[in-house]
């Protein structure tokens, strides 16, 4: 289906919605193309290619928003979507009304950010690069037995939205992602480790830098042992800190707060983290691969501090939750719920080694596992399998495994003593999370011995 054909269907949905019984309505079309190449043992083990599109309809009646969606785009699509959403409106009885919106100053929102380099992403190019990466990883050390997983993928696609208030919005974007995971074996001990890369132009990929990180993530794990249980000062490597932080990030959503499922309720203006911690949402951040000028409710996004010097400044709002608190949406209405765009944690001055020197004796945490289960996102409690290194006399020491780190998210935020300057970017649902490594005092570690 072409974008023009899709526009005809969206227009018909919008035009017919009022006579069908809706007060207001919006319709969104999205189209997605992707390609990926997997490499195993010197060959392309898998090649994938796809094209997929669909329409989501949201109909508002008496403040209740019924939704319906389909990817079957035929003569019955419009009827199916209208009837499905209406049936849903009839069972809804939410106390808080929903809204369809159009900013009178921004009725036409068009933002395209195609890289212009997408055509470089061919099967041959990915295959060649993949084989090169595999060879380079195997050459790291004779102990590297196999690159178990190596995948290079790219995707692109536009999305288009219209509503009965007169909004027309269009965005498109593209991107590339690459992941490699390898296995090494020494004296019967098996270790696994890898690295990833995201970007827009495949020519920006730096092979030697990538291999260096894979080597560090894999080969330094040999000789790992547990540690004694106890309280340790910890340097969370940037990516590990983001993983842990993201498990609790929903607590900053006004939906979760209004439902009483976040301990941040009534905490705006209070200190929820150490004064060295500042976290901002910067939707158009210049270093971000994807800029996000407006949300899917048609509200313009803007820069804002969420936590500034430890003080909780604002939660994320969409139209519905903002109305409930008699305030404006923060431009975080995405997909009928709430989401963040680009998140930036303000870095400190020291590099990673500088943070280790500051800690003196403690632990580096490089990976936390089981985040989908080992956290209580409401109370903030967590207990997670993790690995990393000892910090001995201010330097990275022997590797550490089979330990758990446990604590409470809110207590941990208060115990951040310093942030590094080694910012990494981790992709999120939309946008990225930019964050440096972080020192947290007094984390509870469970290991082999009491």
């Amino acid at each position, binding site marked *: 289906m072409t974008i023009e054909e899709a526009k005809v269907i969206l227009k018909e949905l919008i035009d017919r919605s009022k006579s069908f019984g809706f007060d207001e309505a919006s319709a969104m079309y999205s189209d997605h193309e992707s390609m990926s190449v997997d490499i195993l043992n010197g060959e392309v083990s898998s090649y994938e290619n796809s094209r*997929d599109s669909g329409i989501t309809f949201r109909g508002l009646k008496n403040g209740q928003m019924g939704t319906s969606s389909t990817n*079957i785009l035929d003569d019955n699509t419009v009827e199916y979507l209208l009837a499905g959403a209406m049936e849903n409106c009839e069972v809804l009885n939410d106390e808080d009304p929903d809204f369809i919106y159009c900013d009178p100053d921004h009725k036409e929102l068009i933002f395209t950010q195609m890289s212009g380099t997408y055509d470089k992403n061919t099967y041959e190019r990915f295959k060649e690069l993949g084989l090169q990466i595999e060879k380079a990883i195997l050459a790291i050390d004779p102990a590297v037995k196999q690159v178990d997983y190596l995948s290079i993928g790219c995707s692109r696609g536009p999305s288009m939205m219209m509503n009965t208030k007169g909004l027309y919005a269009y965005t498109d974007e593209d991107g590339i992602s690459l992941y490699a995971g390898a296995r090494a074996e020494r004296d019967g001990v098996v270790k696994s480790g890898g690295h990833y890369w995201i970007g827009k132009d495949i020519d920006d990929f730096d092979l030697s830098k990538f291999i260096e990180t894979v080597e560090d993530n894999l080969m330094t794990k040999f000789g790992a042992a547990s540690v004694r249980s106890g309280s340790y000062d910890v340097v969370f490597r940037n990516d590990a800190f983001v993983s842990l932080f993201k498990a609790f990030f929903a607590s900053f959503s006004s939906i979760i707060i209004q439902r009483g499922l976040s301990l941040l309720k009534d905490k705006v203006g209070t200190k929820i983290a150490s004064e060295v911690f500042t976290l901002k949402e910067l939707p158009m951040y210049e270093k971000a691969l994807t800029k996000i000028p407006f949300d899917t409710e048609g509200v313009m996004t803007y820069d804002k501090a969420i936590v500034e010097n430890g003080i909780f400044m604002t939660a994320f709002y969409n139209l519905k939750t903002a109305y409930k608190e008699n305030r404006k949406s923060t431009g975080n209405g995405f997909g009928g719920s709430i989401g963040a765009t680009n998140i930036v944690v303000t870095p400190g001055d020291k590099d990673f080694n500088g943070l280790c020197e500051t800690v003196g004796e403690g632990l580096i945490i490089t990976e936390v596992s089981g985040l989908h289960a080992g956290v209580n996102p409401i109370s903030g409690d967590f207990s997670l399998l993790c690995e990393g290194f000892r910090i001995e006399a201010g330097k990275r020491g022997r590797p550490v495994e089979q330990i758990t780190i446990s604590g409470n998210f809110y207590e941990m935020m208060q115990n951040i003593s310093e942030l590094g300057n080694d910012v990494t970017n981790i992709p999120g649902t939309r946008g990225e999370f930019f964050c440096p490594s972080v020192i947290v005092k007094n984390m509870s570690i469970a290991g082999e011995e009491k």
Partner: protein
Amino acid sequence: MNDSSIMKILDAALSNNADFAELYMEEESSKSVSLLKGKVIKAGTNKGAGIGIRIMQGTNCVYVYSNNFDPESLIHMAREASMALAGTDRAAAADLQKLCKSSPSMISVDPAAIAKSETVEWLRNASEYALGYDPLITQVACGYNFSSKTIRVVNSRGVNKEETKSRIRFSVETVASKGDEKQTGRISPGTLKGYEFINEYPIIDKVRECCDTAIRMANAGYAPSGKMPVIICNGFGGVIFHEACGHALEASSVGIGSSCFAGKLGQQIASSVVSARDNARIEGEWGSYYTDDEGNESSDLQLIENGILKNYLIDELGSRRMNMPVTGCSRREDYCYAPTSRMSNTYIENGSSTPEEIIANTEEGLYCTQMGGGSVDTATGEFNFAVNEAYMIRGGKIAEPVRGATLIGKGPEVLMNIDMVGNDLELAAGVCGASSGGVPVTVGQPTIRVSSILVGGREE
């Protein structure tokens, strides 16, 4: 799609050095509703369809998918895809066999015939019961999802199968608040049975248990940390086996030699009191199917017998890599994923001890009554999983409740450390995520005891 178009697509897929081509077609419809404190806050309806074409040459695979069923564009897509397989040998597709239909669903009352309002009312009653149960219960979220999916798999060997599955899943989550402390209790059963499952489900009893869990955990102190004997209760406790062993028996890791259990068939990998199965053929069970997502008949597979590794879970690609027959375990979330070896209903079989005997025989340890999810690194066998409800055992008796524990270890070690297996096998529904997406599975086990496992808690 008619047979002639299918044959043309298969033919195009085989046009360039492929030895196997497969078409996977899918149609799915679903309805879902979410309630918060008894009010319906979300209601959605979805219908989707798509097609995936997989082409293989030895162990090289090409997978393309789309939601566009136009035969001409699919022929074009198949031909383009086949170009990725270098060479000029050309295989021919066998004639399609007569279409064979199956369904593991066991439906007396069709959920599609039930008005949304009836199920909403049922959940609203449960929600009101929970909110009135105790002042500590401050929030109740419920929801349900009914879905129906029909898949058809045809391939160049003439396979022509269709399977329909109707699923029901609902959930109730209660939150108990005590000061800043908030703890949850949750039930989320799933089934391939019809609406009679809802009609017969003792929802009020289950919601009461769910509230009790949340309240007990809100009042509980932190779990201790360190190595200790751990008793894991029946049902969802089986997630330990799923993570610690099941994933590492899948051909996706065994076939490339990356699993810690690769090359161990016939060897003792678990304590002799452990026997385990993966049975996809239990009628009406959440993780069941009769035809897998590459058109093979599913099986009831003995994975471990008295501690000895008997079988791996092998799909078409794994079969080629391992030179062993497929076991009918190839699954995918939907047409957007190429299929791979996955678990179905996977459980540790009954042993001879009663749960009471297991507790009485444990001087001091942790008794885990509700498990959360977990994850595993199949290369190293390192796994972790969360404990949602637990109690200390002191002097062979259940003592105070504790919260916030995580169990960690290495699969091969923990399997050898299971020293007692109960006789109270129970299955529980879940969704397992892996490279071919999220698929419905059941995990299960009787009550078991692991003689020593590392508990990550907050108390030193």
